[in-house]
C-alpha cells in the first residue's frame, strides 16, 4: 500500500480567483510530507486537490496534472468519488458523525459503500481502531456515541474512520491544531506508525511538528494578499530546517517573517 503522487504545473481556482499557481512536486510513497507556510498561502486548498475535494466547493476547479502512480486523477473518465476512496482525508476539527456510535463511525465508510457483512465490518473496525491507537481506550464502549470522546480521541476516531476504507494516501489538514500537546503527541506517534503503510501528507502551522514527523517538507508562500500561493521550496525536512536554499524559507522558519 501507499502510492506516489506526481503533480505537474497545477493551478487551483475559486471561480476566477487563482488561489494556487504552478505547483510541481512529487510526493514519495510510504513517507510523511509536510506542507508549511503562512495562512492563506493555499496549502490547504492545494491539499484538497489531491483527492478532488476542492471541486466540492462551488466554483472550485483545477488546471494541470495530478497523478497517483501514473494514473491521472483528473482524467475525464475518473470518478471523483472513487478517488476519495483511494485518497483519504482527516480534517482540522475532529468531525465524527454525531448520530453514530464509535463502531458505526469507523464502519461508516465501508457501510455507506455497500459492505453489509457483519464479520468483515467488525474486523475492519477493530483493525482500524488498533491502527489509530484507540482500540484499548474504546473497546468496551463501541456502542457509545463518538461525539462523547475527548477531542484527541475524536481525532484518532476520525483517523480510524479514514483508514477503515483502506486508502493508499492519507491527507491531513492541520490534524492537531484543535488538540492539546498530549493528544498532539499521540497523533504524531500514530503518523509515524502509519507511514509504514500509507503515503501521508500533512498540512501544519506547527514547525516543530513538521520537523518531528515529516521526511520531506514543502514551503508555500504568497507574494501578497490576493496573489496566488506558490510552492517556494521542497526538500528533505532536515535540509529545509537547517539549510534551506531559498531566503524566504529561511526567513519563515526562523520567524523573521510574517
Amino acid at each position, binding site marked *: 500500500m501507499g502510492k506516489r503522487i506526481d503533480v505537474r504545473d497545477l493551478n487551483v481556482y475559486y471561480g476566477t480567483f487563482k488561489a494556487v499557481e504552478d505547483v510541481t512536486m512529487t510526493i514519495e510513497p510510504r513517507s510523511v510530507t509536510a506542507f508549511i507556510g503562512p495562512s492563506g498561502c493555499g496549502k490547504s486548498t492545494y491539499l484538497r486537490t489531491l*483527492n478532488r*475535494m476542492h471541486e*466540492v466547493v*462551488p466554483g472550485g476547479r483545477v488546471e494541470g496534472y495530478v497523478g497517483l502512480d501514473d494514473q491521472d486523477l483528473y482524467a475525464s473518465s475518473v470518478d471523483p*468519488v*472513487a*478517488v*476519495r*476512496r*483511494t485518497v*483519504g*482525508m482527516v*480534517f482540522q*476539527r475532529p*468531525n465524527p*458523525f*454525531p*448520530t453514530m*456510535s464509535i463502531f458505526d463511525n469507523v464502519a*461508516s*465508510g465501508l457501510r*455507506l*459503500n455497500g459492505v453489509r457483512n457483519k464479520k468483515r465490518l467488525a474486523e475492519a473496525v477493530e483493525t482500524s481502531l488498533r491502527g489509530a491507537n484507540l482500540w484499548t481506550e474504546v473497546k468496551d464502549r463501541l456502542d457509545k*456515541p463518538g*461525539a*462523547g470522546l475527548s477531542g484527541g480521541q475524536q481525532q484518532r476516531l*476520525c483517523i480510524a*474512520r*479514514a483508514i477503515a*476504507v483502506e486508502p493508499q494516501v492519507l491527507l491531513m489538514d492541520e490534524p492537531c491544531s484543535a488538540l492539546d500537546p498530549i493528544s498532539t503527541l499521540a497523533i504524531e506517534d500514530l503518523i509515524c506508525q502509519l507511514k509504514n503503510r500509507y503515503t501521508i501528507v500533512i498540512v501544519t502551522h506547527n514547525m516543530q511538528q513538521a520537523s518531528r514527523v515529516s521526511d520531506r517538507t514543502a514551503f508555500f508562500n504568497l507574494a501578497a494578499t490576493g496573489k496566488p500561493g506558490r510552492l517556494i521550496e521542497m526538500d528533505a525536512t532536515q535540509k529545509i530546517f537547517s539549510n534551506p536554499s531559498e531566503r524566504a524559507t529561511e526567513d519563515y522558519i526562523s520567524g523573521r517573517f510574517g
Partner: protein
Amino acid sequence: MTALAPPERPTVVPAGLAKPSGRRSVTNLAATVLVTLAFVIAVVPLVWILWTVLSKGLTLLFDQQWWLNSQRGITSRREGGGAYHAILGTLLQAAVTALISVPIGVLTAIYLVEYGRGRLARAVSFMVDILTGIPSIVAALFIYALWVTTFGLDRVGVSVSFALVLLMVPVVVRSTEEMLKLVPNELREASYALGVPKWRTISSIVLPTAFSGIVTGVLLGLARVMGETAPLLILGPYSKSINTDLFHGFMAALPTMINQDRTEALQPAVERVWAAALTLVLLVMALNILGRVVAHFSSVRK
C-alpha cells in the same frame, strides 16, 4: 499553620470601578419592567383562551360518548352524541395532507440546500415565499376552481387535504431548510472524503443528523393546518355522520363542527361548540408534545 488574613477592602473605589450612577440603575429598572410587562401582555390572552375553553368545554369531554359517538340524528335541542366523526375527519384529512406535503416539502428543501444553485433555486425559493403568504381561503378557492369547477368533481375529504397541502408545503420546506442548514458542512466533507457519493451522504449523514428538527417542523406545520377553517368551509361541508371515505360524501372536521352550532343559543349545542373547541386545542397540543418527545429521543447523541 496560620490562615492568611484576607486583604483589607479599600474604602475608596477608583472612578472606573464605581457602581453605576442613579441614571443607569433607573434605565435598567425601566427596561426590566418593560420587558416583563410585554411578556405578561403576550401571555394573558393565551391563558384567557385556555381558561375559557377549559371551563366551558371540559364537562362533555369526560363523557365516554364524546369520544365514541357521532352527532347523527341529534338535533341542537338534544343533549348527547359525540365528536368522534369530527375527530376522525380532522385526523384523516391531516394524515393525507402530511402524506403528500412531507415528501414534497422535504425533497424541495433538500434541493434548495444541497443542490440548488443559480436561477432555478432562486425561483423555487421565491415561489415558496409566495406560497407562505397565501391566505388559506385563496388556497381553498384555487382547489375549488380546479377540483369542482374544472374537473366537475364532488367536494370530498381529499379535496380539503389538497388545499391544506398548499398551506403546509411551504411550512415544511422552510423548517426543513433551516434544519439542513444547521448540519455542519464538515460532516458532509467527512463523508465525501470517505468516498461516499453525494446522495448517500445526504440520505445517511445529513438527514439523520437533522431528523429530529425536521420531525418537529412537520408536526408544527401539521398542528397549524389542522385548525385551518377556510378550506373546510369551501371544500368540506359538515356532516353529522361518521365518514371514513376520503373520496365520497361529506366529511366532518372539528372546525366545521364548531362552526355548525356556532349560531345556536340552545344550551346543548353551545356546550358542544366549546367541547369541540377544547378537543381541537388538545389535539394540536398533543401533536406539539409528540413533536417534542420525538425531538428529545431521536436528537443527536451527545
